[in-house]
């Protein structure tokens, strides 16, 4: 079987497969569809790996939907950045799917439509990462956003529904702003194809292009939950069932970040760098504010959600550094590090909550004794978030600091180092509590081992990736 045949184009199948298993899961009915999902995701992992190898070796991949070609039709294109995001998405989703299969008991209202919604979510993400058309990107954004809101709200009580509503409004206003930006771009240039726009948007772009860039980025910032637009994230990610929180924190917020980066490096490169320091400033504020809130949080999942707010901040520190190489590498590494670690951490938190029956940090006393694997997973994920070696988080931190020093922006290096210490405080709050002697009265509910080990696999991957940075770094080297 030759991969060059259009029939087996991995690019197309990365979108078709999840759409197919999502629909199948829907037709199969409530709570059904785990196995098609796992089989599909396993195949997708293989496809993404294949694509990443091809792109990493210097190739590119494109798919001209409908055969028309831009600007009339819609093009799909994969460069190093897209390939990296695709790889991360499948690599995180597969263990989470295995996790979720054990997590949702039959009849759990939160799991009724989990599989089809997740399938559409993954399809939306994959479609987003490969799309080279600004309007098509809008549709994928909405697909991802609505699926994510549905997953947050599923089977929840008042707090969860309120969180979902807040999330829905944030995501809708975000994509609304993005859409207006697209409308202005179309008005100014007559096309929404990224490749076609690339040579057209120059330094003397009309004012409308600047407004469009500002609107699109602002909308996407809202969807990425960059400080001070983070208000919706902690209740949504903290309130959802653990597998959903993991998917959302690890992947969904990264999608809009990816899109900002894509616009920044691509069609709007003449316009957006004017906002570089604003982004970094907000990123730094996110690191401090998110960490501070995580340090104060009473609930475990709320703590992890605020940690996401903080960790997303690092991604925005790279924007003033994008003029020189190294920054994208750092960004990709951080996306991977946080994606894997946060998925692992939420998964571990899900186990802890199931076992202790409560979502508080205080309730963890004795967890190391009773659930060593899970706490080990939590610790490994925490290592990555703190940026301790040899984790991938450490490499990301190293790369950001070095890129910052190379360009004389030592302040960014200082923020990264301080952020690592703050992360240590909130991670250790949890570990410390877990290491305490168990109160004699505490009884823990039994938890399926699959849950423990899939959390462990994700967390361990986030650490071990720190030893395989060379391969991964071939991808951002191939950004076009």
């Amino acid at each position, binding site marked *: 079987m030759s991969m060059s045949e259009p029939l087996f184009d991995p690019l197309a199948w990365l979108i078709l497969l999840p759409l197919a298993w999502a629909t199948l899961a829907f037709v199969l009915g409530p709570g059904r569809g785990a196995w098609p999902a796992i089989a599909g995701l396993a195949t997708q992992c293989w496809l993404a790996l294949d694509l990443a190898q091809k792109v990493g070796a210097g190739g590119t991949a494109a798919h001209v939907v409908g055969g028309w070609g831009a600007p009339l039709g819609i093009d799909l294109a994969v460069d190093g950045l897209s390939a990296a995001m695709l790889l991360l998405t499948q690599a995180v989703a597969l263990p989470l799917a295995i996790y979720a299969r054990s997590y949702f008991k039959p009849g759990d209202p939160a799991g009724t439509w989990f599989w089809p919604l997740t399938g559409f979510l993954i399809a939306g993400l994959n479609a987003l990462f490969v799309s080279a058309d600004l309007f098509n990107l809008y549709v994928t954004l909405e697909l991802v956003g609505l699926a994510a809101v549905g997953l947050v*709200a599923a089977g929840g009580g008042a707090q969860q529904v309120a969180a979902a509503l807040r999330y829905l409004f944030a995501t809708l206003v975000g994509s609304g702003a993005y*859409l207006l930006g697209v409308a202005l771009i179309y*008005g100014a240039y007559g096309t929404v194809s990224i490749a076609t726009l690339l040579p057209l948007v120059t330094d003397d772009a009309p004012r409308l292009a600047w407004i469009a860039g500002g609107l699109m980025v602002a909308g996407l910032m809202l969807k990425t939950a960059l400080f001070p637009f983070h208000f919706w994230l902690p209740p949504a990610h903290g309130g959802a069932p653990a597998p959903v929180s993991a998917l959302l924190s690890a992947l969904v917020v990264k999608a809009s970040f990816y899109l900002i980066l894509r616009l920044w490096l691509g069609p709007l490169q003449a316009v957006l760098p004017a906002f570089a320091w604003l982004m970094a400033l907000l990123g730094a504020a996110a690191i401090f504010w998110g960490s501070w809130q995580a340090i104060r949080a009473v609930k475990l999942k709320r703590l992890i959600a605020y940690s996401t707010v903080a960790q997303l901040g690092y991604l925005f520190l790279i924007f003033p550094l994008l003029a020189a190489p190294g920054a994208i590498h750092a960004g990709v590494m951080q996306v991977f590090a946080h994606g894997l670690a946060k998925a692992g951490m939420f998964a571990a938190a899900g186990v802890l909550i199931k076992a202790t029956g409560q979502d508080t940090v205080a309730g963890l006393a004795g967890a190391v004794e009773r659930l060593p694997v899970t706490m080990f997973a939590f610790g490994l994920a925490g290592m990555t978030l703190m940026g301790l070696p040899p984790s991938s988080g450490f490499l990301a931190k190293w790369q950001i600091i070095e890129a910052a020093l190379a360009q004389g922006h030592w302040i960014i290096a200082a923020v990264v180092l301080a952020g690592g210490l703050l992360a240590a405080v909130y991670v250790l709050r949890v570990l410390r509590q877990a290491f305490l002697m168990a109160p004699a009265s505490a009884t823990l509910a039994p938890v399926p081992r699959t849950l423990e080990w899939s959390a462990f696999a994700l967390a361990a991957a986030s650490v071990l990736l720190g030893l395989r940075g060379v391969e991964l770094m071939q991808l951002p080297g191939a950004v076009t």
Partner: protein
Amino acid sequence: MSTGFVFALAGAVLFSLGVAGVVLIGHLLRRILAFNLMGSGAFLVLVGLAQRQDVADPVPQAMVLTGIVVAVAATALALALVRKLHALTGQLGLPGDVDE
């Protein structure tokens, strides 16, 4: 000034009003309406600006059709959530932040 331009300008006004509404209005149904206003504003800008010479352009029109369906879907989901919230709490507004 062409008709297309008038549409686009009206779109800009509607969009701004919509955003202001989403930000300011606490009542959820009205907030959903504000969101729809915002979306319609963006659609008007998309179509109006593209045909500012008053020659129809089918591409943005098709995009708007797609956009409308997406907006319908989002609105339906928002309504479902609001109804659920109302059934659970009897409220038609979001509770103040429940941060610890």
